[in-house]
């Protein structure tokens, strides 16, 4: 999610993140009430058209489905052989619609807007000791530091390889965790230095 957002000024980009999430929940629930294949295909055409309205390409839409194309084909084959081909196409059309709708949300919503939405919708948890600000910061930091962790892991793995150590999980995990702990101290200092107040 941290690098999927495509900047733009379309209706979808301008919509409030919370409203988009509600639309996704509504559309995702409704699509399971639809069993007519023609209607489902129309829904797929419509959601693909929404990509164009959002200034995205058909390739962007396909990228949302690409990782699961094989799974969708397997579902189609299994459903087709066990039940009917119509049911098979119905099932994969629903999944494809859901993936495209979720992808549209991700591609047109900034992480910060999503996090603000999550933060503003978690206020009801304050009485039981949950600080929404801390939750949203934790999500942001997670998204920010996933690529950093990946890089640290690669660096440690390469350092071990050049010294003759191939796959060894504990030998990899210990230096990575040590570096991440040191890094977390620095990040904590950086948050302090930039005026972060958890209260």
């Amino acid at each position, binding site marked *: 999610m*941290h*690098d999927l*957002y495509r*900047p733009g000024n379309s209706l979808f980009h301008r919509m409030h993140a919370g409203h988009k999430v509600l639309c996704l929940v509504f559309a995702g629930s409704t699509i399971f009430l639809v069993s007519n294949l023609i209607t489902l295909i129309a829904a797929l055409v419509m959601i693909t058209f929404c990509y164009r309205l959002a200034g995205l390409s058909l390739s962007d839409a396909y990228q949302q489905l690409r990782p699961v194309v094989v799974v969708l084909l397997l579902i189609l084959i299994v459903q087709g052989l066990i039940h009917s081909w119509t049911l098979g196409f119905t099932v994969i059309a629903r999944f494809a619609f859901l993936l495209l709708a979720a992808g549209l949300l991700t591609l047109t919503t*900034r*992480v*910060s807007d999503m996090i603000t939405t999550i933060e503003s919708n978690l206020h009801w948890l304050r009485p039981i000791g949950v600080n929404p600000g801390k939750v949203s910061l934790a999500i*942001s*930091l997670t*998204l*920010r530091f996933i*690529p*950093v962790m990946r*890089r640290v892991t690669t660096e440690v793995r390469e350092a071990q390889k050049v010294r003759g150590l191939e796959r060894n999980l504990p030998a990899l995990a210990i230096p990575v965790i040590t570096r991440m702990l040191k*890094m977390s101290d*620095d*990040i904590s*200092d*950086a*948050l*302090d*230095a*930039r*005026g*972060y*107040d958890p209260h």
Partner: protein
Amino acid sequence: MIDITDVDLKYGDRTILKNLSLRLTEKRIGIVGSNGSGKSSFARLLNGLVLPDQGQVLVDGIDTAKNAKAVRRKVGFVFQNPDNQIVMPIVEEDLAFGLKNRGLSKAEQAVKIDAILKHYDLDEHRNHPAHLLSGGQKQLLAIAGVLVMQPSYVVMDEPTTLLDLRNTMRISRAIDALEQPVIIVTHDLDLLSDFDRVIAFDQGRILADDTPSAALKTYITAMTHA
């Protein structure tokens, strides 16, 4: 003005800084010293990230031990590794982080972010994930993230250590252009040639405190014969 009076700093049993007294008034001050000499701890004292065990650090009259939050508003801090300082996934969001902490409205944030992105030539990267920037761009973003909050002083802890020559020069130019007084901890002695004052640390004490040429001569001589 930053006043450091009779400061002792320890980490456990280890003495980091011993009986340190300084007044920092110049616009460009360089801090040099060998590894473990206490220079980075000294930098952290200046904005209250580290508090003295004894003595006092006053920033424009505000005691870091009594009102660290107010001191941090005055003293911006740039860390050695920008990866540890950039806390938000997207460039623009990271710049907004400090402003949001200050309670600025979204409109006010936008104005300041626009200006700083243009100033540091990062405008085209506004919506990019921070981790995809080059090392130099990350350090510029880290500096921009501090300067967008318009601190009265800027402290930098080895801002060019991880950079190549081109990016070091880029950061050097950015430092030269700063209006605020800047205190830089560095091993890059060339960076300090035009500075007003250089303080050299050795084993928690001041080895030299003079003009760049005089202080660096003392420092290099001491390190060569150590």
